[in-house]
């Protein structure tokens, strides 16, 4: 198991390097110009100097390794320095955003908590709703509950977040006036009243994202439970006179959770992508919104770093899912 994990980690390094190269070349080949928004009155020679100042003077085979060095060596050094008060970085050049002229990772660190709160919470809520739905739908297959569950998850698959989010705003903010339509990230929770406000503003974005998670996870949970409910060991357990709750909740559920856990792990990076739209609707200034703003401003270092971070998430959670599969299912041997 350990050697497998180690081998997979080693394989993921060239994968990530290749992805970084693809993203870099895509941005490089693209004709977008970060100086396009500058006033036309700037003389060409000054413009040329500004280009050099942005680090655009060198050819790509110098800038790409440089970016890699900044991402994998310099930035961790800065992080280590700020965490432990050391001085490994020694003033080395960090990845600087074209727009704000501040280090990219500082901005990302500011935006991270909002995204993690909304996205993370929605994922937890979605999974918590999905598991019981999946269990009951499988246990009472073809019942009314199951039919409704199937229909709701179909809706979850089909209604895009930019419609479900807007629909919720129309219903709960505009018509009923119960919930705020904008997520206020400057809000500080320090007592019960402010906690309630925080809760109110989180309900809609969380539910929009959770609907999609629920749709997916509950389907997998149902299919997995159905697979296991028909197995011989279930009949044996019942024949031994075990209580139905023990049979379902201990024997069947535990075995059914194995594939579902990997699905849950695999879905985590995908939800960051889905959050781009949801953050846009509810005006959460998280990572997704940061990416959109950076794209519109031709902020290449920011776009590059953010996209690559998403790629790291995907590769890592793929690995985690595979490892978890081996940990939970003794039948699977990777070695």
């Amino acid at each position: 198991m350990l050697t497998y994990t180690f081998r997979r980690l080693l394989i993921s390094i060239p994968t990530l390097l290749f992805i970084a190269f693809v993203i870099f070349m895509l941005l490089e080949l693209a004709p977008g110009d970060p100086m396009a928004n500058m006033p036309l009155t700037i003389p060409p020679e000054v413009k040329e100097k500004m280009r050099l100042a942005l680090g655009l003077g060198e050819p790509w085979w110098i800038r790409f390794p440089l970016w890699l060095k900044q991402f994998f060596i310099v930035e961790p050094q800065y992080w280590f320095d700020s965490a432990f008060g050391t001085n490994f970085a020694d003033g080395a050049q960090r990845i600087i955003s074209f727009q704000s002229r501040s280090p990219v990772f500082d901005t990302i660190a500011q935006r991270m908590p909002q995204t993690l709160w909304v996205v993370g919470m929605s994922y937890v809520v979605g999974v918590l709703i999905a598991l019981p739905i999946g269990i009951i739908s499988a246990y009472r297959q073809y019942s009314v509950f199951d039919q409704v569950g199937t229909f709701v998850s179909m809706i979850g698959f089909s209604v895009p977040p930019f419609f479900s989010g807007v629909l919720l705003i129309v219903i709960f903010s505009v018509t009923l006036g119960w919930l705020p339509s904008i997520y206020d990230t400057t809000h500080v929770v320090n007592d019960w009243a402010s906690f309630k406000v925080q809760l109110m503003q989180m309900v809609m974005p969380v539910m929009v994202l959770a609907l999609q998670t629920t749709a997916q996870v509950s389907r997998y949970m149902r299919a997995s439970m159905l697979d296991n409910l028909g197995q011989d060991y279930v009949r044996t357990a019942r024949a031994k006179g075990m209580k139905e709750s023990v049979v379902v909740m201990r024997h069947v559920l535990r075995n059914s959770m194995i594939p579902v856990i990997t699905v849950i792990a695999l879905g985590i990076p995908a939800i960051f992508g889905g959050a781009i739209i949801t953050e846009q609707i509810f005006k959460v200034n998280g990572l997704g919104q940061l990416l959109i703003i950076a794209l519109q401003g031709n902020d290449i270092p920011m776009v590059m770093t953010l996209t690559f971070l998403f790629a790291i998430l995907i590769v890592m959670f793929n690995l985690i899912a595979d490892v978890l599969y081996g940990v939970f299912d003794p039948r699977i041997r990777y070695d």
Partner: protein
Amino acid sequence: MTNRAPHADADNLLVAGDPTAPVEAVKARNQWLDVWDQFRTHKGAVASLVFLIAIILFTLAGPLVWRLDPAALDIRNKDLRPIINALWGAEKVAWAHPFGTDNLGRDLMAQIMQGGRISLAVGAAAMILAILIGTFVGVIAGYFNRLDGLLMRLTDLFLALPLLPLLLVMMLLFRDPLRSAFGPEQGIFILIVAGIGITSWMHTARIVRGDVLALKEREYVLAARSIGTPSRRIITRHLLPNVLSPIMVSATLGLATAIITESALSFLGLGFPPDFPTWGKILADSVPRMTAFPERVVLPGLAISLTVLAVNYIGDGLRDALDPRIRGL
């Protein structure tokens, strides 16, 4: 061709084992007729098919009947509400604009027809592109052992890419050159279709590869090879028809995702140019004023959601209908 109802056929099958039953000459049945009979038993799928055809007719034939130009400005009749609002209040409504008009007086019904045309065309074209790439990669990887490792690593790499961010990057960066090369609408159409197609072929490739790997070891493929059938002919005559069912199922699912992705791009402002309506674009443009005019958000949103829901249900029914283990039960 038989015109009998499917359950009548099922009855015949049931009594077929009974030796006293009169032997009825069973006419040769087309395979697709069987599939259709099975498909018809899935009520949701049939209703969805009817709905999808209706939507397609609405967007294709609608403009022939409803001859308003979706881009025509009619500033005197701006901000009309849909006709149904007249039921609960004296608001600005007009029979000339049953869905109402927007802030520039453009007719919403004509816009939704035009937008649906674009959305469905983009979805279909992107789906076809993704299916073509996926089938090609899958068949090649499954049939030629030497290329298998390489192509599947490529597929894994594509699966590890953050697709929506990359799609956004592609849209933003290649919009202007394509626009100047092919004109504003054509250029964006090509870009969106290519973008969605290139980023969504991987699942098809995996499914097709798995099936081809199993199929090529079958006796009939061996027999074909033993009489000297070239690889190209084996693939087109023997393998492709047998992987058609998973391809069709993943095509319907691909159509659903492609429609959603296109709308999402339009919603984020990275789709078609402003005066060029698609469902996602109409929805996105209406969001700032949705407090006063919620119908402009709800109508295109419903159109997207119901279409995608219908396509998903059709995919569900198709999966059941194409599975020979379920068919005939």
